[in-house]
């Protein structure tokens, strides 16, 4: 039964992710992306990582994609132009994709990289767990301990990166705002 569900949801995820890249209508693309995210959340559920699944739906399918749709609708970018990428971009994309695929294949078939036996499922944090020795459990508590102890630095650095990105966006948009005499116009190609 879980096998069947796994294949179902991974097919759904991959198919809709593929459709995102080929759909010409931006709203269609966004909808496929939502389906892809939800499919991924279902895969997390099958792995009994309910917390991750909920966050996946809450943050990506629920908030980020609403923002995407908002931008698409606000700029009326529904009917996007077909842009032919130049040769350099095409070549770079091909090489990057090939590298990614070969890396994935290597990891999948390299016996040393992935554990061949499934890990036992732990639902409760054991009493003797310490800050440096946190077992991976499915409860949301273990995520909290992990994030705020062992992975504190990456967590903070990620947050800092996001802050930089946000400030960068604000600075960029402000510059457009004050450069010309005309009121600000978003510099995005309209159809």
């Amino acid at each position: 039964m879980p096998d069947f569900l796994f294949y179902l949801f991974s097919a759904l995820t991959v198919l809709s992710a593929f459709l995102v890249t080929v759909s010409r209508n931006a709203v269609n693309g966004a909808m496929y992306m939502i389906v892809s995210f939800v499919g991924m959340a279902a895969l997390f559920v099958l792995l009994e990582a309910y917390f991750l699944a909920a966050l996946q739906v809450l943050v990506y399918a629920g908030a980020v994609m609403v923002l995407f749709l908002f931008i698409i609708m606000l700029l009326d970018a529904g009917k996007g132009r077909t842009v032919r990428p130049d040769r350099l971009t095409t070549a770079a994309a091909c090489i990057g994709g090939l590298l990614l695929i070969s890396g994935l294949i290597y990891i999948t078939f390299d016996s040393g990289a992935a554990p061949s036996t499934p890990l036992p499922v732990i639902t409760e944090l054991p009493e003797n767990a310490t800050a440096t020795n946190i077992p991976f459990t499915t409860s949301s508590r273990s995520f909290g301990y992990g994030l705020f102890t062992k992975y504190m630095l990456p967590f903070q650095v990620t947050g800092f990166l996001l802050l930089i990105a946000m400030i960068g966006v604000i600075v960029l948009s402000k510059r457009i705002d004050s450069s010309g005499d005309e009121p600000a116009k978003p510099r995005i190609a309209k159809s």
Partner: protein
Amino acid sequence: MPPELIADILWKVLFAVIFVVVIMTFAAYSVLAERKVASWIQGRVGPNRTALPGLSAIPVIGPHLVKMGIWQPLADGVKFLFKEDPIPGHVNKLYYCLAPAIALIPALTTMVVLPVGQYTVDGIAHPIVLANIDIGILFILAVSSLGVYGIVIGGWAANSKYPYFGGIRSSAQMISYELAMGMSILPVFMWANGTEPGLGGLSLFNVVTSQQAMWLGVWMPVPAFIFLTALFAETNRLPFDMPESETELVGGFHTEYGSFKFGLFFVGEYAHMVIGSAVFTILFLGGWNFLPDFGIDGLEWLSDPWSRMGWFGSVLSVLYFIAKTMFFVFFFMWVRWTLPRFRYDQVMNLGWKYLVPAALACIFIYALIIGLIDIAFAVEETPAIVQ
């Protein structure tokens, strides 16, 4: 498949069907309640004519039921079902037909993790819930945030300007208030997990049991207020019904909808409202706890009289919970007919400039308070995980 598994699945399906039927009935009768409350506030009496041929003839009760408008939702539903359902020529047909379903389904899905009462086995209280998962509140937030796609996609698919505006406004409003909503409930879970040793996690049942001494709405009034305001915004209720605002946008996102599809949107809104009220009751109003017992020994019967009454107590706990929820549904309507609609920029200002900072401040303040309480009273009881 083994027969036990099939039986188990059948039982679950049966319970799910019961939940759906109950919630949908509540949604339908909320529509009636809305009309009644609107009438009362405006000095009228509301729908009191619809009569079922057989049942209205019952002496004494029959005329009373008619006067209360009990049969009105039936008539409305039948009307929606049998009206002609035209699809305008200029719409995107797939999304146009899909949108009402997308609006309704998340509202109905959230109730899976909603505990509605408790039963006691061997002195241990268990929640009456379809799926008692560890991350109840996250599940509700996640799934109900998908409901906005119904509105956005409906507005986009209708392919005319007012629905389009409605869709845009809805998406912007949803982003703005989801943040404040999510942050305003953090103090609740800090409290539920902080001083009491126990399961931890984000389960809603845990929140209810942690409120036996004091309902959280009483000593966390600011988070409760922020959550309530965000709830109004998330359910598109006045004074935040930006996507609909009939005075500016005709009908907003459902301008091009009619008949049963409109009915689905409509019931979806009320289902959201019922679920939202239930969540508020659980988080801030003590769920099915009878009255706060202020942590006094010997007064436990005041907060939890249900566990002493067997199965009858379970039924009473569910009824008490429903009564609290219904009060909040009424509160939604009461506010609707009291406050005028905010302007769009006011909505955005309120969300970003007041509610989000206030929610952040609440997190810090309550974290501080709960930490101090922890240090002062309950250190030896918390499981020693951090050395």
